[in-house]
Structure formats: structure tokens, C-alpha cells
């Protein structure tokens, strides 16, 4: 009985997404006619049409998004793990104060800082590059991940550090040789969240990437939907599905880490 209810809720929730996937293979008149999931006539041209609708083609946007995502992942992994090590293991003046500020910045909305940030980056000539989107990650501004890693490092036995210190290791070596290898689960969580959030992020990419050659997937998709080229729902759905495939794959691979990450720190 309970299972029936749960399956029903789940089905209703996921129905629009399933319907979009099926409809991306339908001719337009059928999309409007058919609320079901059974495919009467197959139309794969939607994908080819959507792919080539804008210049450059969707391949460029996928590549751009991939480059951006990789840059953000590396940036977050390096900078957040360093900051987390300091907050979790080092004693320094004003630590409580800095830690409080770090926690506060988790809640800081991007909209509050975007205007002066844009002024700064546009004066550096960084508009229409990926730098305004990657550099903040290299500078550990995703405090959410710093916090996640601090939590994780605190759970590691201190005896390991102490032993290494007695053996004459300094902090850089303790961090690189002992802590970092042990915090693989936290690094995996960070990787997977950074991937999904960066892939989905629209606001920052909309503001900083205005040249079609630099468009990422969300910006391109939006411009495709807005353009007069896109009269067909079929090709819009097709490109929407393409844009969601990486998210779905990341979800399949990283479910375990996603669930743990949210449960401990409360992500999106």
C-alpha cells in the first residue's frame, strides 16, 4: 500500500521529464496531441536540427561547458581543501572569527556581489572568458565545500598527524601525504556537486558569456529557445535532453556522495 503510494508520487513527479524525453523523438504536431509515453512515429531529426540550429553548433557549447566545469572542479578541490585543512587542523590568531566569516559567506547570495564583481572583471578584460567563473573557485569562495571538508577532516584521527609530526613532517607534507589521501570521499562529493552546479548555473554564465563562441550549454539553450529559429518544440526538447544527460550521468555515478553531502551540510 505504502509502496503503491510512493511509486505513484514518484511517477507523477518524474512524468514530465520522461514525457520530454519521449517527445524529443516526436514530430511537433504529436507533441501537442499526445500526453502519453508511447511513441507513434519516430523523428530523430529533432536532434540534428537542434544541434545545428545555432552557429556554432551545440558541440561547441558542450565543449565550453566541459572546460568551464573542469576548471571549477580543479579550483574547488585545490583551494577548498587547503582552506579546510587550516580551519580543521591549524591554530591561528582570530581563527574563530575567520571561521565565522567563512560560514557567513555560505549564505551570501551571488546577486549581492555580482555588480561590483562585474565591474572588476570587465575592467580586467575578462568578460567573454571563463576566468570570471573559474577564478572565484580557485579562490575558495564556494565556502559550502570548505565547510564540508572541515567537517570531514575533523572526523579523521589526530594521531595520524601527530605521528607524522614526530617523524618530522611539516604541515604541507601532512596535508599532502596524510590528510588529502584520506579525504577522498569529501573530494568526490565536492567534485560531483561542483560538476552539477556549474553545469546548471545560468545567472553567472548569462552575465559573463555574451559572445556566441563562448556560450555554455545553458546560455546557448536559452538563446536557442528565444531565437526565432526555434519554432519546433521537438528540437528544443532534444537539446534540453542533451543538456540534462551529463547531470543524469553525474547523478548515477555520484548518488552516494550527493546524498551524504546534503545530509551533512545541507546543499541544494
Amino acid at each position, binding site marked *: 500500500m505504502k509502496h503503491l*503510494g*510512493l511509486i505513484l*508520487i514518484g511517477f507523477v513527479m*518524474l512524468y514530465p*521529464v520522461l*514525457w*520530454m524525453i519521449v517527445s524529443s523523438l516526436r514530430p511537433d504536431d504529436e*507533441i*501537442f496531441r499526445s500526453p502519453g509515453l508511447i511513441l507513434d512515429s519516430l523523428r530523430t531529426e529533432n536532434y540534428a536540427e537542434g544541434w545545428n540550429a545555432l552557429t556554432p553548433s551545440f558541440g561547441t557549447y558542450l565543449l565550453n561547458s566541459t572546460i568551464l566545469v573542469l576548471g571549477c572542479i580543479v579550483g574547488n578541490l585545490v*583551494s577548498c581543501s*587547503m*582552506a579546510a585543512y*587550516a580551519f580543521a587542523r*591549524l*591554530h*591561528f*590568531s582570530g*581563527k*574563530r572569527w575567520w571561521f565565522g566569516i567563512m*560560514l557567513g*559567506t*555560505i*549564505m*551570501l*547570495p551571488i*546577486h*549581492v*556581489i555580482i*555588480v*561590483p564583481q*562585474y*565591474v*572588476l572583471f570587465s575592467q580586467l578584460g575578462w568578460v567573454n572568458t571563463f576566468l570570471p567563473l573559474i577564478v572565484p573557485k*580557485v*579562490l*575558495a*569562495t564556494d565556502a559550502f565545500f570548505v*565547510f564540508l571538508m572541515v567537517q570531514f577532516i575533523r572526523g579523521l584521527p589526530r594521531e595520524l598527524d601527530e605521528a607524522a609530526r614526530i617523524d618530522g613532517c611539516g*604541515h604541507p607534507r601532512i596535508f599532502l601525504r596524510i590528510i588529502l589521501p584520506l579525504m577522498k570521499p569529501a573530494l568526490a562529493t565536492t567534485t560531483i556537486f561542483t560538476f552539477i552546479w556549474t*553545469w*546548471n548555473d*545560468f*545567472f553567472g554564465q548569462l552575465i559573463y558569456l555574451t559572445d556566441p563562441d563562448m556560450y555554455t550549454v*545553458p546560455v546557448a*539553450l*536559452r538563446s536557442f*529557445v528565444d531565437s526565432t529559429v526555434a519554432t519546433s*518544440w521537438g528540437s528544443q*526538447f532534444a537539446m*534540453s535532453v542533451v*543538456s*540534462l544527460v551529463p547531470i543524469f550521468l553525474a*547523478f548515477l555515478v555520484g548518488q552516494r556522495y*550527493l*546524498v551524504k553531502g546534503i*545530509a*551533512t*551540510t*545541507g546543499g*541544494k
Partner: protein
Amino acid sequence: MSALDELRQLRHGGVQVRKRDNRAAFWFLAPWFAGLLFITVGPVLASFGLGFTKYNLIQPPKFIGLANFERILSDDRLHNALRVTFTYVLVSVPLQLACALGVALLLDRGLRGLAFYRSAFYLPSLLGSSVAIAVLWTQVFGSDGLVNRVLGFFGIAGKGWISDPDTALSTLIVLNVWTFGSPMIIFLAGLRQIPAVYYEAAAIDGASRWSQFWRITLPLLSPILFFNLVLQIIHAFQSFTQAFVVSGGTGGPSDSTMFYTLYLYQQGFSRFDMGYASALAWFLLLIIAAFTAINFWAARYWVFYDD
């Protein structure tokens, strides 16, 4: 332990420090310090300054005193945007949390296939903020869309949900409720912390499931509920993508989906009125801070801490 618990503990004092590693800490925190200076706190302060100027990125900023803040008080479109945003936050967040808690309660206590259900319900949270889902929503709630086809099946006449100013915002509220999966996972983690003996003892005393929920589950879950509430309110205030895509960037029809963030974007990045946009950004910060402060204040009366 959540970020909020950390903040609580900071206020209540921490461990005494004996030895310091200031130099090492400086190097480990160097990127973070730079980020604080150039990317987060620096710009927050700078936008305060820019709020007193007229600035279009081309000419240098010109000091105009409080004019931008006076404009906030008299800007009717902004007041409408505030109304839209408040409605969205105050309706969608409670609904979303109610769904999250309801489903979490169904899923709790060693249900078979828990991992599968949890994933299925969580998936929309990952997809919900994407442009692709906004595109889907545009079709689903359009006049020829999926919702109307399904309604037609039951003989109910539909309408253009997104093109009607009375219902456009509701479609976005539905979208936010749809992403109840992530608060649900936080609830599930919280439910698992409640010792089963409490329920066993209550059952022996003859307490009904209903009173067990009100007397055991809800009080013990209240810190988690509070955490979710604070987080989801802050998130909801920042919603942008869905309204932007669904309305083609206009906030229409008739400004009915004009979120605060969308209005801020239009002022700053369509009209390049950076001074006014900065003032708006600060105003948003104050609003979110006020909501969070009210939340913390109200928490004293309903959040129950076991420690």
C-alpha cells in the same frame, strides 16, 4: 552537524588554543583570503559605495547621494517585484518543506527499496534549476501544453497557465515544490537520529501514531526543520533562472514573474544602471538578513535542542 549548529557553538565559546601555526595557516588560507578580499566581502563593500552613485560602466561613477535609495522607496515596479518574490518565498517554501517532511516520514524506518525511492525523489532537485527544465515548464504549462492535455482527458478546460498573469507565478511555485528532494534527504538524516526506544516507549503507553508525531518526531526534528527553513528561504529569494526563461527575460506577463533578482538583473545588465543595481543588491542583502534574523528569533519559541 550543520553550518547553523556551528554558528551556535561559536557563540557559546570554543576550545582554548595553546600553540599557534600562524605562518602555515596564512599560506593554506592565502587563496581563501584573496577570495574574501576580491570576490566576496570586497564587492559587498564596493556595492555599498556604488549604491550612492550613478554609473553605467563607461563614464566614471558620479556621486548622487541617496537618490538610488529614494528611488527604491518610490519604484512601483520594484514594489511589485517585492510582492511577487515574497509571495513566491512564503508560499513555495512551506509547501516544499511539507512535501519533503511528508515523504520523508513515509520513507523512514527501514522501508524496502529506500535507496531507490530516495534517489527518484531527489533527482528533480538536481534538475530543477536548469534551463532545460524551465523550457519543459514553458511547454507543460502552455496553452497547448501537457497539463491542459491531461486536464482535457478529464473534461476540464485548461488555459495558458504561463501566459495568464494570475497563474504564471503559481507554475513557478509548483516548480519549486517539485524540488523537495534535497530538504527531504536532510529530514531523513534527522529522522534516523531519533532513537527508536522513544517510539517503543510511547507505543507501550498507548500513544497513537498521530500523537507520537506531534510529541516525539516534530520536537526532535525541529532543529532540522529550522535548518531547512533558513536554507530554503535563502535559496528561494535567489531564484532567477526559471522566471527568466519562462518569461523570456521580461518577468512578464504584466510583471507577474518579476522576481527581485530578475529586476536587479534588468537594471544592472540590460540597462547598465550599475548604481541603482548596487543599491538594489544591498537592499536584497538586508531583506534576506532580516528574514534570517526573524527566523533565528522565532526559533527560540519553537525549536527544541536536546543538548
